[in-house]
């Protein structure tokens, strides 16, 4: 890897599943053979530009440290991590809600009335901000995945989690009782790279935006 190779950090998982087809047949299309392998650094259709496939929670660190010049990550992750990044555009896709969810039949008022409310979440910062706005207190149960199980098994009274279609909630007998915020994919940039080399980074950002808008 040389300093002349530009790296873009792409998310694995839900956002990545939506992103990869959007990039197909664009200058930033990912090499299909590499995608099928277990390789995490993948050439794109543009020489000198490669993609890193990263977990959403790790991605902002790679960009903030300047390892990757650009990245695509959900605004929910950005808000939780509060890294020093530039956020150049709301890309629109990957839209979902950050919601308070409980077992069917449990209302927001029921939860408010609990003397000791327990909320399981992997979004403690957003949850704490919402609790403060609502003048509520709660015990936060930190989880990193499968939060839907927590209310069913008595680990928590409710969860704060991302909801896209509601299918997973329904499958677990949960319902949304309040919407705390909304999230979508954002184009982020390393502050240093963007400000010190705009001649290199802005055209790449424009290329990425152009590729995604062409598919919109």
């Amino acid at each position, binding site marked *: 890897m040389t*300093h002349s190779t530009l790296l873009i950090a792409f998310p694995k998982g839900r956002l990545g599943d939506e992103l990869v087809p959007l990039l197909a047949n664009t200058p930033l299309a990912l090499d299909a053979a590499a995608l099928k392998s277990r390789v995490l650094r993948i050439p794109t259709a543009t020489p000198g530009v490669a993609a890193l496939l990263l977990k959403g929670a790790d991605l902002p660190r790679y960009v903030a440290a300047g390892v990757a010049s650009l990245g695509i990550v959900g605004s929910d992750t950005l808000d939780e991590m509060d890294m020093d*990044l*530039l956020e150049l*555009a*709301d890309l629109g896709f990957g839209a979902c809600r950050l919601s308070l969810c409980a077992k069917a039949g449990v209302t927001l008022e029921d939860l408010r009335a609990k003397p000791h409310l327990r909320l399981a979440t992997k979004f403690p910062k957003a949850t704490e901000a919402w609790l403060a706005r609502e003048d509520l207190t709660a015990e936060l149960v930190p989880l990193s995945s499968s939060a839907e199980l927590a209310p069913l098994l008595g680990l928590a009274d409710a969860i704060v989690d991302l909801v896209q279609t509601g299918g997973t909630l329904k499958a677990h007998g949960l319902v949304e009782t309040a919407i705390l915020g909304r999230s979508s994919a954002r184009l982020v940039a390393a502050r240093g790279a963007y400000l010190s*080399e705009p001649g290199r980074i802005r055209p790449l950002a424009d290329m990425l935006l152009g590729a995604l808008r062409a598919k919109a």
Partner: protein
Amino acid sequence: MPVRTPHFPDLLFGSAARLRRWEGALMGLLADHGYRELHPSLVLRETPPEGALRFFDGDELVALRWDFTVALAGLLARSFPTPPDRVAYAGAVFRRPVQPWEAVERFEVGCERIQLEGEPAAEADVELARMLMAIPGLLGLKSAILHLGNAALVRRPLEAEGLFGELADAVVAALSRRAPHRVREVLDGHPSASRLAAHAEALLSELDGPGTLGALESSPYAGLLEEETSHMDRALQALLPILPPNLELRVDLADVAGLGFYTGPTLRLWAPGAQQELAAGGRYDRLFPGLGRPWQAAGFCVRLSRLLDLAATRPDLFEEPR
């Protein structure tokens, strides 16, 4: 319990020699321009702020110097009935890092240009920019970029709209991220939303040469900011003809870093590919009045620790030392 090793860098031979050489060269440059050194104590007398490195000396809570400008301001306000007009400083400050990779002990060289309130400030601002322009060559950087900004471009519209406190902070945070969509989100429902969103679009529309100032014409606050625009234009006219080779001059209308401190023009020095600015400064006219002195001031600070890191990680950005 997890142990986190704080970053107190030990400098081995090469870095130690480079630090000494750079510090000497920079202080020489400042002395040539009439800046005389003051050395505020390493131990703070004032109430230690958050972020300072604090400890007990017997029963007394003390803190290490965390910012030269603040330490110098206290010293100057205490010791001088009228201000020395040009002051330089060199040494270390100690600050708790915001990011885990940041150093706690940071070496700096800097200067301050101090005047009585009401004296013409434009020449002082250009004097500082001219000195900063000489620094990349002095340090052996092959190329560099100087960003000119102005804190008033954001501060004045916010004040004109009566936006203060958390909402103003949220707008500034969105601008710092260079995210006009976040500005719109933050201001959703506020009477000034459309005007400030349009202003944010104008500030963020360009990051390029002198033509960037033209972007302000589309701002709803173009009239309010005529004086600042004119000041920046005059500074560019003064600086562009004397631009050293391998230094780019750019206008950054959306520079909001340190907005709570800076009141006017700002300066930031970058090297291509560097992840952090290497020097920063600007005008901060509210500092001395807050200490009971009717003085105005501007200055800049060269972040030698970042330069040392850059020399270690990107030696290709530097000329071979002669």
